[in-house]
């Protein structure tokens, strides 16, 4: 649930050690974009589940545990051990160490979308086409389904998603007679109006966050990263979407309309609770965080569609979200796939929603009982209608780098300078680009 997605937002430097990755790779690696042939049928999986075995699942998402219990009831011969091996980057480090050592590797691991390409590149996780996963086309929202793909290969099943929306404090907006912004231009104007009216109020907090920046560029139709096997392009400088973001955001930074509170700190939650941070543009997984950590805002907050780059547009992007993947070294891949399908596609999905997850499957997103749920925290608003609509409007074709975890870690060194007023956002993005290119080249990628 909520906390699960603290993810790279924190931008902390910890992260994946892919040291062993290169060892197994050779030149033939670059064909990682093709789909593996189907060698295991659904009947094989069902047979393995009936026969039984034990499964180790690494996940920090608290909704996985109840699903595993139900699964064991359904298949009494299967024994599942759910382990919390750390949240986000901590877990990736542990997973990578296990893969390097060749022992202690789980059969299923929770991996966020932005980190999945790292494991996919090293072929540390199974291409689910082996199990005929291609037939699930259309089961998941296009954004999340795209996120687990590397070319034609499918490296995981989406278990949740973070289509973005505007969360705002209606009380503060009403008090200062600010209309809910529908475009980023209006958002910028609202930001100035609000801060002028009350010097202690800010439209939002932003001190630089890699995930947020890339999501906004994503929404603007930008494609700064393209990935084709080991051939990459990294280009913010000539990317229209990136420049759109840089221009609009630079104005707001210059006008000093952002609260300096750093995301996920106590200060930040206080700001969200007391109205001094009046809105947030973030993923659909945010509500449970607000309910839990900014309880005082209850009844004041509302959800609206994400502000647009073009008047009348509907485009959105994803922020966060994670998948379940099967490490290549797992010895119970058939059972693992059975569990993946159960948790991400069939019965498990509704159980996870009931426990607070925001789904990635189109069927559940369109279900009336999901859409009609009223949220007390949001004054009884049916927020899922907006969030679900956002999920279907996610711009397609976005890629993360196969070393996005590293790239995000140096965001503060480069783009962060713009938030300190030491450079402009455009310069910062260029510096980020240069550092990422340098790293990619050093790591043996062909980077343009």
């Amino acid at each position, binding site marked *: 649930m909520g906390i699960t997605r603290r993810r790279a937002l924190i931008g902390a*430097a910890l992260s994946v050690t892919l040291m062993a990755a290169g060892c197994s*790779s050779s030149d033939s690696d670059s064909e990682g974009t093709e789909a593996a042939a189907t060698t295991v049928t659904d009947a094989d999986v069902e047979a393995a589940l009936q026969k039984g075995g034990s499964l180790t699942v690494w996940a920090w998402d608290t909704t996985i545990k109840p699903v595993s219990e139900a699964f064991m009831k359904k298949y009494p011969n299967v024994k599942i051990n759910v382990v919390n091996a750390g949240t986000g980057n901590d877990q990736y480090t542990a997973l990578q160490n296990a893969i390097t050592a060749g022992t202690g590797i789980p059969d299923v691991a929770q991996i966020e979308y932005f980190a999945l390409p790292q494991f996919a590149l090293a072929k540390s996780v199974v291409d689910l086409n082996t199990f005929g996963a291609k037939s699930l086309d259309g089961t998941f929202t296009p954004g999340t389904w795209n996120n687990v793909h590397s070319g034609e290969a499918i490296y995981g099943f989406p278990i949740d998603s973070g289509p973005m929306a505007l969360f705002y404090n209606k009380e503060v907006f009403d008090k200062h007679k600010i209309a809910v912004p529908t475009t980023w231009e209006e958002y910028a104007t609202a930001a100035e109006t609000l801060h002028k009216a009350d010097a202690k109020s800010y439209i939002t907090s932003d001190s630089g966050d890699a995930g947020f920046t890339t999501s906004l560029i994503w929404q603007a139709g930008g494609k700064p990263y393209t990935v084709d096997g080991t051939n990459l392009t990294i280009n913010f400088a000539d990317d229209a979407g990136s420049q759109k973001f840089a221009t609009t955001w630079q104005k707001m930074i210059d006008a000093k309309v952002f609260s300096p509170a750093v995301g996920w700190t106590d*200060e930040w939650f206080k700001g969200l609770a007391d109205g001094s941070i009046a809105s947030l543009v973030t993923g659909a997984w945010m509500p449970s965080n607000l309910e839990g950590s900014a309880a005082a805002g209850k009844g004041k907050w509302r959800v609206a569609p994400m502000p647009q780059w073009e008047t009348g547009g509907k485009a959105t992007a994803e922020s966060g979200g994670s998948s379940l993947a099967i490490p290549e070294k797992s010895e119970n891949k058939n059972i693992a796939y059975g569990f993946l399908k159960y948790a991400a596609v069939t019965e498990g999905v509704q159980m996870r929603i009931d426990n607070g997850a925001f789904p990635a499957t189109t069927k559940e997103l369109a279900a009336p009982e999901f859409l009609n749920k009223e949220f007390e925290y949001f004054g009884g608003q049916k927020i899922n209608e907006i969030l679900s609509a956002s999920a279907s409007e996610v711009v397609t074709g976005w890629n993360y780098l196969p070393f996005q975890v590293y790239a995000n*870690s140096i965001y503060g060194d480069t783009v962060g*300078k713009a938030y300190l007023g030491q450079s402009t956002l455009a310069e910062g993005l260029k510096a980020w680009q240069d550092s990422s290119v340098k790293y990619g080249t050093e790591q043996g990628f062909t980077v343009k």
Partner: protein
Amino acid sequence: MTRRSWIGWQFTGPFLAVFALVFLAPIGYSAYLSVYRTQLVGGTAFVGIDNYTKALSDPQFWEAITRVALFLLVQVPVMLILALLIALAIDSGRLYGASFFRISVFLPYAVPSVVAALMWGFMYGTNFGLIGNINEALGTAIPNPLAPEWILTAIGNIVTWEFIGYNMIILYSGLKVVDTSLYEAAAIDGAGEWRIIRAIKLPALRGPIVVATIFSIVGSFQLFNEPQILDSLAPNSITTYFTPNIYAYQLSFAGQQVNYSATIALIMGVTTMVIAYLFQRRSMKGAGS
């Protein structure tokens, strides 16, 4: 002859085995790592001294070294002088509640540095932290200690707070071993308190001061916890190459450049050793002891 040397080995063997395993092996392994390069694409290759030449011309590495060197030159003298003054004050016997004072000054040393950094991090907050409260209550405009211009000072303040008591104890115990008959003799000769400090106490403290300084040199070069913790509160002020240790950590855990990271670690280890050794040699030679 042969038998005698075997007996010697039997006594030292267990120690040597542990020593080799926990001291030499990691260093040897780092040295081994540092002559290879592992890429995400292309695998591992022997590169000889490439990593070392790269490190010596790496501006980020130099920036990190310069930063800790500056920290060393400013923070260590301030901390040691303060520790010395406190030790002298406690030793003078003219303080009320000297033992309470001593334990309070020492207490921060018992606080884990991660906790200390978190605690100070909250106090440094300009919106809801102590600084924010002071600014609001008194109408002052204390600049944000977590801004890039002040962050090193802010860290220096935390480190001083943490280690002043530790250094004070080293110096205080140095003073305690001074033979009290010396003070009596000085008093009989009519020496004042200042004279006693200059002629007896300070010379007696020479050894402890050298030891405290060497610990501080090593500590400065190893600066890690405080900036690493503050990073989550001020991500833009603390770069991923803020100190050499943070840089090595970043290279290894975010960048997967284990080989280069090992190189940085080795260079820093050797540099620290050389500086500490030079300092010790210089100061001991001067003492004539």
